[in-house]
Structure formats: structure tokens, C-alpha cells
């Protein structure tokens, strides 16, 4: 899972970079185009999201707080994916909504849905692996205590 973790972390860092190198208002316009929140909320999200992506990406690559970061990444990707599915217009040629995943210019398409769906699946798998590993560590600690001795709090 190390490779998957680093890959996912790298994707988040790149996504943050594509948004932070341009005006945050472009990302705000991309979010607003989905028409799922009021404009002021889209502006707030455009301010905050790239930094959240950057922090998650760095933490995933570094392998720290894995349960927290993988859960946050999964939740974020689930929200993005749901919004994209809702906005997807397979036959339209007018007013196509940009994915906004890595800057503008990439309309929501079967390809972007497949890509982001795969990232969501990878993140969910990492999350489950992180919780499973933590559980095994806890069980391992319990097994290491000799029988009859109280387990220290």
C-alpha cells in the first residue's frame, strides 16, 4: 500500500499546485459552475480546498496520521465524485462544466469520472488498510501482555 499512498499523495499535491498557481477566483468560478452551493460558499471553498489538498498530499506521502488523512482524503474525493456524477452531461456540447480537478480546461467526461472513481477506490482501500493495521497493532499489544497481569491503561 506504500506505492498507492505515495501515488495518492502525489495526486493531491499536484492538484493543489494547479489551483494555487492561478487566481483562486478561477477555481471559485469552477466550483460555482456546479451550482450546488451559493456563490459565497464557492469562494470560501476555493480559498480553503487547495491548502487542504496540499496538506493531505504531504501527509500521505510522509505516511503520517494515516487513519486521519486517508479518511479525510476519501471523504473529499467522495464529495468531488458525487458532484461530478451529478453534473455530468454525456451528450452536451454547450456549457460543459469543467472538472476543476487539476485546474480548468478539462470537462467532466467518462474519462475524468473513471479516473476520479479510481482515485476514490484507492483512497478507500488505503483508509481500510490504515484502520486494519491500527487494529492489528492494538491486538498485537494485547497479545504481548502475559496472562494474569492487568493491562496498563
Amino acid at each position, binding site marked *: 500500500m506504500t506505492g498507492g499512498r505515495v501515488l495518492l499523495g502525489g495526486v493531491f499535491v499536484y492538484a493543489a499546485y494547479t489551483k494555487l498557481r492561478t487566481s483562486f477566483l478561477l477555481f471559485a*468560478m469552477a466550483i460555482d459552475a456546479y451550482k450546488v452551493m451559493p456563490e459565497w460558499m464557492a469562494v470560501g471553498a476555493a480559498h480553503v480546498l487547495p491548502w487542504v489538498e496540499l496538506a493531505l498530499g504531504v501527509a500521505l506521502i510522509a505516511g503520517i496520521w494515516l487513519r486521519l488523512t486517508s479518511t479525510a482524503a476519501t471523504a473529499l474525493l467522495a464529495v468531488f465524485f458525487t458532484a461530478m456524477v451529478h453534473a455530468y452531461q454525456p451528450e452536451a456540447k*454547450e*456549457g460543459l*462544466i469543467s472538472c476543476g480537478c487539476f485546474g480548468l*480546461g478539462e*470537462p467532466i467526461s467518462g474519462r475524468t469520472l473513471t479516473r476520479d472513481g479510481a482515485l476514490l477506490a484507492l483512497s478507500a482501500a488505503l483508509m481500510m488498510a490504515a484502520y486494519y493495521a491500527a487494529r492489528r497493532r492494538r491486538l498485537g499489544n494485547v497479545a504481548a501482555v502475559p496472562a494474569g497481569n492487568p493491562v496498563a491503561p
Partner: protein
Amino acid sequence: MRIRTWGVLAAALALAATAAGAGGRQTRPQAKPAAEAEPGPPVKTLGSPTAPIEMEIFSDYSCPVCRSFYLGAVRPMMEDYVAAGKLRIIHRDFPLTGVPGHEHSRQAALYETAAARIGKFEEVDAALYDKQAVWVRDGSVDAVVAAVLSPRDIKRVREMVESGKVDSYVDQEKALGTARRVNSTPTIYVTSHGRTELVPGNVSYSLLRRYLDEQLQK
């Protein structure tokens, strides 16, 4: 008698010759009207070429989102930015041929391009968007354009459209959009400070304003 007859005849001939000569001096042959000069290339820009921001819009006149963008953003921008010399807008035709509901897009682009060649772009651009619901349904592009042009101008536009003189301009703009990977309309590029960025087509004017103001403040 014979001399008198000849004399009368000679006098009559002299008079006739004099009248012909006088008529010729009084009536100059009318000069042929000068042929209409061939119009130059279409001018589909709004605003000063020295404006610090340039907005390039690839659009299709049949596209409802393009119409919304024109009415909700382009018109206010003309007042707020173009008139103040802060923004230059360039219209590029990208007719979505072969798409249902866009059967008359190319014809609209041809009429608008022809009008742009005689300096009537703005009027025809506005008319095509204002009456979109009408001509998209019944194909009455000619009537919509004729309603905003003088009889002389619509005659010139029709001649250019029917003779195919503006086809190449529309084809060139379509090819330009295709080369820049335009795949839907409207597609909007904003250039300022030497940098070109893509702006979402279904954007609210309030956000677009903030973006333009931010670019102007740089």
C-alpha cells in the same frame, strides 16, 4: 424655286446640327457609378486594442449558454470595462455543426461575419442573441439580420453570404478553436499580463467581475 428649296433644306440641316451640338454640350454623358470597394476582413472586436485585458470568446449563436453569457456578462462588461478601455472582447465563431438544435448555427455565423466586414458586427451580434429563440426554431436568420440593417447593408451581406466570400473566415475561426481544443461553447480565454487563462463558460458576472478587477489591479 429650286434654290429656295435647297436653301430651306440647308437651313433645316444647319438648325438640326446646331441643336444636336447644343444638346450635346448641355447633356454630358453620365459617369458610371464607382464600383463598391470590396470590404476588408471582418472586425469582430469590441474595445480598444490597447486595453490591458483581452477576452476571446468562442461561441455558437444557437447555444443557450452562450446567449446567457452574452446577456448576463458580455453586455454588462461592455458598459463596465470595454467602454472604459479596460477590456477588449474578441468574438470567435465556433458553430457546432452536426449537433441537434444547431442546424442554423453556420448560417448565423456567416451572416454575422459578413456584417462584420462592413462594420455592422455589434448590431447583428446583438440581434442574433436577442432573437435566438426565433431563428433557431424557424431558420429565419436573414430576416433577423435584415431587421437591424439598412436595405443597402443587408444587400451587401446577402451577396457576401451567397457568394461564399465569408466561408473561409468562419472556417478559419473554427479551425483555430479546434487547434486550441475548444470542445464546447462558450469557451473563454482571458489574457492579461502576458498570461492566458481559461475561464468557465457558465460563470456568474459577479465572480467574473472580481476576476477582471483582480487582473486590473496587478
